[in-house]
């Protein structure tokens, strides 16, 4: 079921979530204790504060095969560390701008404020996002290194026709 090559309907996106320990991760636990079932596609990574979220992690996740990244932090004003979530917000917004420049749909990175009591929000956000990404389809980043997959052809999948034709 985790095979990416199925056609879209069957496509099960891989989502990585970074949840802050105090609000969102706790909310996710709450969703669990309340048995609020949701889509199984998200893999949660716990960080102490959304402020720890280094934008590199997001790109890293994409590079490692994630189709979307969800960032969860405390509501503004509720940060366990006073304002880590604000810092996270600033980075998130700039990162989103960069990613759009790079042709990544902005829905693929989402940031949500989820308080410790909002287990239901964890559920709805994860379901929504899974659905959205399912609609967007898999994110296959272009391979970086030709030394990884040797031949020129695989490194050059498309647009060969252009130069065969000689006209546009």
């Amino acid at each position, binding site marked *: 079921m985790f095979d990416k090559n199925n056609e879209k309907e069957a496509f099960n996106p891989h989502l990585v979530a970074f949840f802050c320990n105090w609000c969102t991760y706790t909310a996710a636990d709450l969703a669990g204790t309340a048995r609020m079932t949701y889509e199984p596609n998200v893999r949660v990574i716990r960080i102490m504060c959304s402020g720890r979220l280094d934008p590199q992690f997001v790109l*890293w996740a994409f590079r490692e095969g994630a189709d979307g990244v969800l960032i969860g932090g405390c509501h503004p004003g509720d940060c366990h560390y006073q304002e880590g979530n604000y810092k996270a917000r600033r980075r998130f917004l700039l990162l989103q701008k960069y990613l759009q420049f*790079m042709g990544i749909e902005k829905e693929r990175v989402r940031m949500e404020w989820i308080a410790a009591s909002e287990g239901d929000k964890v559920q709805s956000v994860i379901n929504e996002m899974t659905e959205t990404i399912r609609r967007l389809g898999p994110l296959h980043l*272009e391979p970086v290194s030709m030394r990884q997959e040797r031949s020129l052809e695989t490194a050059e999948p498309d*647009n060969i026709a252009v130069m065969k034709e000689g006209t546009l």
Partner: protein
Amino acid sequence: MSKPKIAFYWCASCGGCEEAVVDLAESILGVVEKVDIVFWPVALDFKRSDVEAMASREITAAFINGAVRSSEQAEMVELLRGKSNLVIAFGSCAHLGGIPGLANTFNREEMFRAVYLDAPGVNNDRSTVPKEEIEVSEGILTLPRLWDTVKTLDQVIKVDYYLPGCPPPVSLIVGAVEKILSNQLPEADPVLAPDIALCEECPRRDSKPEKIAVKEFKRPHEIEIDPEKCLLAQGLLCMGICTRKGCGAVCINGNMPCTGCMGPVSHISDHGTKALSSFASLIDANDDEEIARLIDNIVDPVGTFYRYSLPASLMHRSHMKAAAKGEKS
């Protein structure tokens, strides 16, 4: 015994790196007498066939500058790799993709359109673009294929060492060459430049305030730049915070912010995004609208954060699948 053999080659580059070699001035003579230059298309008349004729690993060290973006360049560097004992990626383009690497925000078709059709003054009503093969009376003529994607040298062949910089500072080149000749190249860090950020050797270091908070991002032409004060503190996106030192802070001394040609320090995995993270952290605002306003000051995030390192970045290039879907902004 015969002198060590040295080769120079250029791929997608501006020629600046070749200049840098010439800039070695008299110190080049010292080099020249210690070595045989067996291949240097820009300066000496050797042919590809000469290289092909060499034995494997016959060349002591090949200095290759420029990014790799065509089948021909790929063939040449693979050929040189085979014949060389050491391959040194010379300059930002070979190291990280460099300025040509910014082409990775487009694909070939878009580039062809721009260059052969849309550019002002182009008159090309038959919409002709370069063609790989063309049949003429003498037979079939071929052209190398231009790739969609610009690659760093080490994405195409194995690279032993890197000389960063646009172009690499003379001091580093000399140092590298001497190390090669005396056979004492470092084990750990293959990048032949100090592994610490420029701020460390920045002449304006002491003008840095204890704490920095940015209320407005500025571009150099927008302000009267204070020649003494830390550029970041003036709201300029100075890449010196995450870029290797070793250049002697030439840009800073020219009263311009660092643009990152020396490449990232080794402890971060994505030059631009790390810079992005740091700059964003300095934004002195908490409400979304204000943040958005500041972010709008940064008109060209890719060109700002990845001026030299896009192909080497985690994203590597703009996402073509999405671009095809017309979702590329």
